C-alpha cells in the first residue's frame, strides 16, 4: 500500500505548519494532537494490513528495487511504529498539562513532531544509509528538545549527549561506507542477499561488531550507557518518557534488524558477544539503579537493565536453529513492547511525584500514597509489571524469554536465564525502594498544583499493560508471527526485490 510513507510524512507536514503558527499555542496544541492521533490510527491500520497481506514495500519515485530508497513495513517494523505512536499520544497529552509555557512558545510541538518523523522513519526504512539519515533527524530533534529551556544542568547534559551521539554517528557513516565497499549496495534486502557471496568473508564479523557498537550506544548497552542517566533527568517528564522508552529502543530495533537480516549466518562468535553483553547490561543496569536515590535516575538505569533482556532474546535466537530461536526473538519483541509501555508510564508517574513534591530525590519525598491514591496505584501496577509479577505484562514477557532460553539449551543460555531471574529480584528491590520512600512514609509538604490532567495518559498506558498480561494470546501470536518473519529473511528479501 502507499500508506507506508504517511507515518513519516504527516509529522513532517505538521511540524512545518506548526512552525508557522508560532504565536498561537492553542492552535498548535490542537493540530499536534490531531496529527499524532491520526498517525496513531494509521499505524494500527498499517499493522493490520501487514498482518493480513504480508510485507508491504513502497519504492520511492518508482525506482527499480536495489537502486532507489525503499520503505519496508514488515510486522516487526509495524509493531514498533504502533507502540512508538502509542507512547507519542500519551507523552503529548501529558505534556499539555505539565510543560511550561516558555517551552511551548519555543517550538516544543514542532520539535516533537520532527522527533516522531525520525523515529518512524528509522523503523520503516529499507535502506541502510537512509537509516542513518533518519537516525540523525531523530537525534537532532532530540538535541534541541534536551537543550530547550536552557537551564544550567540541561546545557551540561546536552554537551554530553551530543558528543557521544556525534561520535557514534561518525562511526556509523564509516561502517556504512565499509559495508558499501564490501557488498556494493545499500539496500538492506540486497545486502542480505549478496553478503554471503562476497569474496572477503573475514570482514563480516568486524562489521557486525561495529554495528553492534553503534546501535548499542543508542540502546545504552553495557559500557556504552554512561551518557544516559544524566540526560533523562533534566528534561520535562513527558518528553523524557518518550525519550527513555522509544529512543533507546530504536537502537534495539537496529540491532534486531541488522543481526536477523544481514549478519544472520556464521553466528558462533556474535551470539556469544550478544549474550555476554545482555547479561552484563542486565546486571550492571540493575546494580546501578540500586545505588541511586533520584526517582528518574533509578528508572533510567532500569532502561539499560531491561534492554539487556531484549538483547537476550536475540542472543538466544542466534544461538540455535531449533524452534527455540523463533521463540527467543518473539520473547524479545514481546519484551520490547511490554517495556515501552511500562517504562513510559513509570516516567510519567515520576513526573507527577516530582510536580507534587518539587523534588527529584526520593529521600525527600514521602506519603504520596495518601495524597493521591490513584497516582500511587498506577505507579504500583507499572512497577510490579516491571519486576514481572503475574498477571501483568512483565510476567508473560519474562516467561517467554526464560522458556526459550531453557529450550535452546547450552550452558551460555542457562547462565543468562539465571542472571535474568536474579535481575528480576533486584528490580523488585529498587521498585520497592521508590515505593517505600516516595509513596509511603512521612508525608511531606505538597505543592498546590493541579495534576489531574496528567493521570489519564498514565492510565491509558497502564490499562494496555494489564491487557497484555491478562489476554496475552493475541500479542504473543503477533510477536511469534513477527519473529518468524525476522528469522526467515528470504521473505523480506523477496518482498523487496521481487522474485521468489
Amino acid at each position, binding site marked *: 500500500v502507499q500508506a507506508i510513507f504517511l507515518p513519516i510524512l504527516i509529522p513532517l507536514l505538521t511540524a512545518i505548519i506548526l512552525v508557522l503558527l508560532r504565536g498561537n499555542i492553542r492552535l498548535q496544541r490542537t493540530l499536534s494532537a490531531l496529527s499524532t492521533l491520526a498517525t496513531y490510527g494509521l499505524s494500527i491500520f498499517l499493522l493490520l494490513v501487514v498482518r493480513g497481506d504480508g510485507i508491504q514495500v513502497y519504492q520511492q519515485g518508482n525506482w527499480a528495487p536495489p537502486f532507489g530508497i525503499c520503505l519496508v513495513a514488515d510486522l516487526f517494523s509495524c509493531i514498533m511504529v504502533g507502540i512508538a505512536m502509542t507512547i507519542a499520544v500519551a507523552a503529548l497529552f501529558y505534556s499539555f498539562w505539565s510543560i511550561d509555557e516558555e517551552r511551548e512558545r519555543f517550538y516544543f510541538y514542532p520539535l516533537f513532531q520532527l522527533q516522531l518523523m525520525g523515529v518512524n522513519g528509522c523503523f520503516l526504512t529499507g535502506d541502510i*544509509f537512509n537509516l542513518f*539519515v533518519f537516525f*540523525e533527524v531523530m537525534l*537532532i530533534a532530540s*538535541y*534541541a528538545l534536551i*537543550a530547550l529551556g*536552557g537551564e*544550567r*544542568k540541561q*546545557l*551540561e547534559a*546536552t*554537551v554530553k549527549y*551530543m*558528543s557521544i551521539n*556525534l*561520535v557514534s*554517528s*561518525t*562511526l556509523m*557513516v*564509516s561502517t*556504512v*561506507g*565499509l559495508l*558499501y*565497499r564490501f557488498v556494493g549496495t*545499500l539496500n538492506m534486502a540486497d545486502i542480505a542477499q549478496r553478503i554471503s557471496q562476497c569474496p572477503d568473508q573475514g570482514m563480516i564479523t568486524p562489521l557486525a561488531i561495529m554495528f553492534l557498537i553503534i546501535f548499542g550506544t543508542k540502546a545504552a548497552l553495557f559500557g556504552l550507557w554512561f551518557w544516559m542517566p*544524566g540526560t533523562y533527568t533534566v528534561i520535562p517528564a513527558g518528553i523524557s518518557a518518550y525519550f527513555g522508552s522509544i529512543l533507546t529502543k530504536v537502537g534495539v530495533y537496529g540491532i534486531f534488524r541488522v543481526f536477523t537480516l544481514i549478519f544472520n549466518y556464521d553466528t558462533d562468535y556474535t551470539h556469544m558477544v550478544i549474550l555476554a553483553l545482555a547479561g552484563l547490561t542486565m546486571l550492571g543496569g540493575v546494580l546501578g539503579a540500586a545505588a541511586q536515590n533520584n526517582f528518574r535516575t533509578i528508572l533510567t538505569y532500569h532502561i539499560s537493565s531491561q534492554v539487556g533482556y531484549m538483547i537476550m532474546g536475540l542472543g538466544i535466537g542466534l544461538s540455535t536453529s531449533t524452534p527455540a530461536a523463533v521463540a527467543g526473538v518473539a520473547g524479545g519483541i514481546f519484551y520490547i513492547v511490554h517495556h515501552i509501555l511500562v517504562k513510559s508510564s513509570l516516567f510519567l508517574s515520576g513526573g507527577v511525584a516530582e510536580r507534587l513534591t518539587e523534588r527529584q530525590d526520593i529521600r525527600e519525598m514521602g506519603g504520596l500514597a495518601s495524597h493521591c491514591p490513584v497516582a500511587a496505584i498506577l505507579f504500583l501496577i507499572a512497577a510490579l509489571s516491571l519486576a514481572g509479577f503475574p498477571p501483568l505484562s512483565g510476567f508473560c514477557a519474562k516467561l517467554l524469554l526464560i522458556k526459550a532460553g531453557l529450550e535452546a539449551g547450552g550452558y551460555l543460555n542457562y547462565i543468562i536465564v539465571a542472571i535474568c531471574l536474579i535481575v528480576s529480584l533486584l528490580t523488585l528491590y529498587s521498585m520497592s525502594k521508590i515505593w517505600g520512600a516516595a509513596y509511603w512514609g512521612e508525608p511531606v509538604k505538597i505543592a498546590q498544583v493541579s495534576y489531574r490532567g496528567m493521570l489519564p495518559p498514565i492510565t491509558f498506558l497502564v490499562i494496555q499493560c494489564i491487557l497484555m498480561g491478562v489476554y496475552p494470546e493475541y500479542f504473543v501470536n503477533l510477536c511469534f508471527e513477527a519473529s518468524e518473519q525476522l528469522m526467515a529473511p528470504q521473505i523480506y528479501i523477496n518482498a523487496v526485490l521481487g522474485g521468489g
Partner: protein
Amino acid sequence: MEGLIAIVVGVLFACGIFLMLQKSFLRLILGLCLMSHGANLLLFTMGGLVRGAIPVGTGGGVANCTDPLVQALILTAIVISFGVTALLLVVAYRTHQEHNTDDLDELKELKG
C-alpha cells in the same frame, strides 16, 4: 593512492580523538569536526579512487565512470554534520554565557 588516503583517514581520526580527550569545549568540537572529515574521506575512498567520466549523459558505459553514489552519500553526511556542528557551537556559546567557563571538568562540578 588508496593506501595513502587510508593513512590520512587514520591520522584524521587519531587527531580527532586526541582533541576530544582535551578539557576544552572548543577542542572537543574541533575534534568532532576532524572525525567527521575522516569519515567522509573514508566514504569517498570506499567508492574506489579512479579518474573516470561523468556517470550521467556521456554514454561512456559503466566501466569508465566514477561511482556517483558515494559522493551523494558524502554530500548528505556533510550537510548533517554541518548542521549538528552549528548547533553544538550554539550550545557551547550558551554554556559559556551561563557558566563562564570552557572547561568540561569545571562544568561537571557546577552541575551540583
